[in-house]
């Protein structure tokens, strides 16, 4: 006679999912009453299910009533879901009916040749998969770096002008101005090899041989004091190298850190005691008609003639010497 809960619980599970989906889509504009009534029903059924479990051994009638309710609820849920899906279609950014999904392949395109895949599939995975055979030492790397990289990154990977600094910055990540370099920040050596080999030098990407790339990467490690000057990097010892900041990353944690707090009905009135300007823009941006823009410092400072707004008053006050109320907030 535990049949009743067994039927009910899956039904409630489905309802929960459906309510979640429907609620997400309809928040503000649609179906609240329907959802409210469904929620009420779910509460009702929860209570019934609990009591049904207790008295199941002698409650055949109750069980059949619950079964009936569950069936009703499922019908309602199906309706809500259909409505939600309709809503998702109309308001949910579908300008065309969904593209059909063919049972078999369309047979378009052609098989890629092995040479084509070899030419384009050059990415290197964090575990070193994808690396070609080869090697390079620090001293060779210094020469290649001077020719191919130093114009932007500096002879010692210190960076020129606004171009990226590649060396140093250790233990600055928690500072006010963290220096994020290959040494201090990059978690994987594979990323360095991949990027240098594939996308550098700037303006002549893809021109470095595998050995040159190993040498440049070895030199960048050396410029970060991560290896000695006799270091040789190769496909064989690559995977053994652990970066300084390898454990410095966490995967997106906004859901726990932020969403849990910020998904709440917001304040509309008297949300704070006072609102006053604490900082003005640093740069004024001029927009010449010929294109581009010029930015110049804004030398305006916080001054007495800035307004202050206070809760409970429908006026902005100017805290000037006179202290007089000057302007009213329009509603």
């Amino acid at each position, binding site marked *: 006679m535990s049949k009743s809960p067994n039927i009910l619980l899956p039904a409630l599970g489905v309802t929960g999912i459906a309510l979640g989906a429907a609620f997400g889509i309809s928040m503000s504009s649609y179906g609240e009453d329907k959802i409210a009534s469904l929620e009420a029903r779910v509460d009702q059924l929860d209570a019934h299910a609990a009591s049904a479990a207790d008295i199941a051994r002698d409650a055949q009638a109750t069980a059949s009533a619950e079964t009936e309710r569950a069936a009703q609820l499922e019908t309602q849920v199906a309706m809500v879901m259909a409505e939600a899906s309709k809503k998702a279609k109309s308001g949910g950014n579908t300008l065309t009916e969904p593209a059909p999904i063919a049972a078999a392949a369309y047979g378009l395109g052609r098989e890629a040749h092995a040479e084509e895949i070899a030419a384009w599939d050059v990415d290197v995975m964090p575990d070193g998969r994808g690396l070609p055979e080869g090697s390079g030492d620090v001293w060779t790397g210094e020469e290649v770096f001077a020719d191919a990289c130093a114009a932007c990154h500096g002879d010692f990977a210190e960076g020129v002008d606004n171009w990226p600094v590649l060396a140093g910055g250790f233990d600055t990540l928690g500072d006010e101005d963290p220096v994020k370099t290959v040494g201090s920040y990059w978690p994987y050596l594979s990323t360095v090899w991949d990027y240098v080999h594939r996308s550098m030098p700037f303006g002549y990407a893809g021109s470095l041989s595998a050995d040159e790339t190993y040498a440049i990467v070895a030199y960048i490690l050396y410029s970060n004091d991560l290896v000695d000057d006799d270091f040789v990097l190769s496909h064989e010892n690559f995977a053994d190298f652990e970066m300084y900041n390898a454990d410095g990353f966490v995967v997106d944690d906004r859901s726990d850190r932020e969403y849990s707090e910020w998904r709440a009905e917001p304040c*509309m009135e008297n949300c704070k005691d006072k609102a006053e*300007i604490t900082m003005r823009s640093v740069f004024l941006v001029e927009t010449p008609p010929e294109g581009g823009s010029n930015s110049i410092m804004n030398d305006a400072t916080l001054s007495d003639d800035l307004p202050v707004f206070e809760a409970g008053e429908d006026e902005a006050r100017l805290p000037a010497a006179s202290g007089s109320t000057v302007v009213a907030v329009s509603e």
Partner: protein
Amino acid sequence: MDDLLKSPLKSASRRAFLRGSAAMAAGTVAGAATAADGPDPLITELQDWASYTGAGVDETPYGMPIEYESHVVRRNVEWLTASPISSINFTPIHALDGTITPQGCAFERHHSGAIELRKEDYRLMINGLVDRPLVFTYADLERFPRENHVYFCECAANTGMEWAGAQLNGVQFTHGMIHNMEYTGIPLRTLLKEAGADISADKWVYVEGADASSNGRSIPMEKALDDVLVAFKANGEALRMEHGYPVRLVVPGWEGNMWVKWLRRIEVTDMAVESREETSKYTDVYEDGTARKWTWVMDAKSVITSPSPQMPITHGPGPLVVSGLAWSGHGQITRVDVSKDGGITWQTARLGKQGDTKALTRFYLDMDWDGSPMLLQARAMDDTGYVQPTKAQLRDKRGENAVYHNNCIQTWYVNAEGVAENVEVS
């Protein structure tokens, strides 16, 4: 930049800039007075355009905006990046209305410059964990069933300069790394299926472009199968060169860097590649030095586009349309509230239409401005119930060393003359 700061010329032009806005306000009021004083010659006198003929139909085979709108263009900020080849510019959102961004003024972000790639020379490869590694031509892509969707594309660095404080005085510069277009494309899942890809949940799709940067990014399979498009048209016409002609990836709701342009290869992998763009860039450092990665979704955000520093109130007190944009990478915008007193009280704005999912929503607050100063703010909510945070809330959670994903509430100080400035408030 030091030179700029010291230059008396620049200083003078700054004053001119400030005076300009105020003068504009005064000028308009005066203009209205003249018209009220007597008959308007624009009406009473025969105008050239009402007498002579205009331009013929073929004068501009592909039309450009009229010269009077020539100021509505993309602009960059020269000191932001080392070179315009690897740089970004900004959509003139202050001057646009509605929701669709015209391609010609939609922001550009290149890592190795915009390339010219003919359709005839275009190839798209799918390889990796697939039964059949395939190569498609552009013509092949046009034979797959396709869909149309409107989506916003926002650079993860949009508003990034504002982390430390109020920086750039213009909504184009604080919020202009965004555009919103109607895309025509093939669901990525269709191509994955065509190649017989391993689509189990722990797999990834690595995508890269044909340009020198290649800008590779890893996308988890769940997203790849959901709403990602391989797109070749925007707003009904071919993509512009600067947006990836002939084919780009559209990754709805996720940071713009993943919308790989000049898409040339899709590789199914068993882990994230951890490319340069998903480790050294597009990651943010917390106050303790720990960094977070894979922050793909663009959270709900809104901003008032007018009035704003580039759009001062020039008509004086009376009817005023406060207008702005709202969007969420999680879904639909359900509500936008506007505050005129720096966040003490809020009133709900009118949405131009019910928001499309992962697309820009336009909002309006139609008010009667009495000419008193305002601290204007907008606050968006999406259909997950998420409420756009204040700058203080964001800093509390993330510190001040973040670069990307700044979706804070923006404040414009509008003074009694209608001049607006980017400020921070308590």
